[in-house]
């Protein structure tokens, strides 16, 4: 947060350089990067790395959102650890390959994903993407607020307080912080996602069983095909979501990452992917060890799973930590998704669009994210809302939107006129097109099973 005298100084200096204030604040951040880069000590190099990481780790941890935590917990409870651990390890390179493209696109073009689609492929596809993203984000935010309320309910916090509190935090960090501080605070909140890792150690799982799952990888028997497809695609769907593409690219642009920073951006994305995988696997091992095999475990909802955990080896303290992790997952995802709505709206409509901007100077940018978050929070507070139907709507929109968003990403990454030497290499295209193909088929199957699932 800037004090009044600092705002005046920023304004004065920005005027002297004849650049907007938000760009000047970005320059101040970049000045730190420049100084660290010009120092050859190992410690400074490490500091440089710490300064440049952010968008990749944030997007990946935010992807382990409340819905993701619930999906992983239910997967472990229903299928144990046999199939899904190797499957989730496979998801790490998938997430990396897709998200890495947004780093290059953002650093080279200095424009967000929404802006690139709008400018390169016209108003129709631009408006189509923006509409889908905003609707999908609002619907996803509903699930995040539900996650916060469910997690904090364990501590006796009423749902209305969790939801309003969550909304206040999400809005405040966006309005009052400048990009770098916003990113650092978000990273600290994201660190809470790691709570699931020590929980697994506390659970004392049978590690030999975990290791042998790689050697004896098989499709679990005893469950209906449609239910299995539903679960596998839900896990895949939580690995890559449309908002992630928009978020990371915009974040790279707002942070001011340049072509020279691409290697660090790639490392940031890689570390984020690995953390995402470790957390997801931890949750599956946790419920796969402590809940799987109990009578009726395949039908347990998250409240039931937490009840079972409280009676298990990890006890009430472990369950409290799990609940805290669930609430944190909802909060960090809400922070990221709200920012992605603001960025995408600002980019598509060519508004001032930086978290470095003053609230009063970039009202439409801030309000688009905050109002969508407020709408989601309000929906959660309305009694008897058909939340199942809302979940269905999230999946349907994501199903239609995801292949489109991916296709635009691939077209842009193969556009020599825009990307120059940074276009996709042949192996990147082979990997990315394979993933897109699988995602399209998976999305269609997922959409089909969600819509016709009994």
């Amino acid at each position, binding site marked *: 947060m800037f004090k009044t005298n600092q705002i005046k100084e920023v304004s004065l200096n920005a005027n002297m350089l004849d650049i907007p204030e938000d760009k000047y604040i970005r320059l101040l951040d970049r000045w730190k990067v*420049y100084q660290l880069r010009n120092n050859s000590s190992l410690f400074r190099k490490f500091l440089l790395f710490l300064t440049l990481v952010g968008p990749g780790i944030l997007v990946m941890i935010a992807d382990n959102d409340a819905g993701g935590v619930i999906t992983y917990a239910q997967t472990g409870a229903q299928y144990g650890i046999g199939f899904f651990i190797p499957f989730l390890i496979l998801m790490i390179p998938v997430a990396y390959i897709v998200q890495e493209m947004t780093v290059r696109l953002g650093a080279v073009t200095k424009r967000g994903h929404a802006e690139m689609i709008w400018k390169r492929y016209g108003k129709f596809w631009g408006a189509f993407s923006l509409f889908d993203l905003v609707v999908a984000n609002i619907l996803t935010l509903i699930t995040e607020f539900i996650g916060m309320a469910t997690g904090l309910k364990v501590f006796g916090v009423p749902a209305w307080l969790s939801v309003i509190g969550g909304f206040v935090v999400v809005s405040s960090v966006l309005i009052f912080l400048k990009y770098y501080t916003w990113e650092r605070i978000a990273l600290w909140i994201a660190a809470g996602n790691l709570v699931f890792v020590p929980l697994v150690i506390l659970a004392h799982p049978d590690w030999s069983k975990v290791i042998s799952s790689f050697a004896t990888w098989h499709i679990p028997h005893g469950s209906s095909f449609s239910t299995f497809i539903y679960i596998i695609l839900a896990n895949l769907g939580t690995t890559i979501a449309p908002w992630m593409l928009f978020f990371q690219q915009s974040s790279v642009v707002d942070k001011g990452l340049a072509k020279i920073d691409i290697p660090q951006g790639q490392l940031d994305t890689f570390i984020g992917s690995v953390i995402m995988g470790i957390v997801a696997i931890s949750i599956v091992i946790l419920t796969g060890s402590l809940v799987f095999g109990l009578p009726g475990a395949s039908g347990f909802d998250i409240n039931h799973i937490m009840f079972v955990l409280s009676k298990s080896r990890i006890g009430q303290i472990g369950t409290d930590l799990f609940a805290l992790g669930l609430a944190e997952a909802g909060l960090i995802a809400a922070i990221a998704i709200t920012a992605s709505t603001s960025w995408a709206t600002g980019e598509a409509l060519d508004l001032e669009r930086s978290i470095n901007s003053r609230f009063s100077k970039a009202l439409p940018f801030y309000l688009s994210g905050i109002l969508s978050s407020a709408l989601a929070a309000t929906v959660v507070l309305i009694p008897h809302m058909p939340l199942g139907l809302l979940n269905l709507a999230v999946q349907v929109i994501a199903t239609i939107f995801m292949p489109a968003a991916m296709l635009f990403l691939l077209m842009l990454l193969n556009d020599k006129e825009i990307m120059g030497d940074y276009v996709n290499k042949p192996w990147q295209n082979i990997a990315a097109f394979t993933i897109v193909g699988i995602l399209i088929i998976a999305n269609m199957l997922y959409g089909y099973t969600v819509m016709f699932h009994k």
Partner: protein
Amino acid sequence: MTKNTIFTKDFFEMEKENIEKPINVNKTEVKGWIKWAFWALRIYIVVMLVLIGMSFLHIK
């Protein structure tokens, strides 16, 4: 002394990308494989919309 005075010429040169306006992006001519990709996308969207319609009838 304002902070501007500490910025070096070398720094400004390096940060050109962040100071100057980003590269111009114009609407591309849709041709070749991109034309096919757009048609595939349109068909995909129509198929999914039909599926959604059918699913609602199915629910009823």
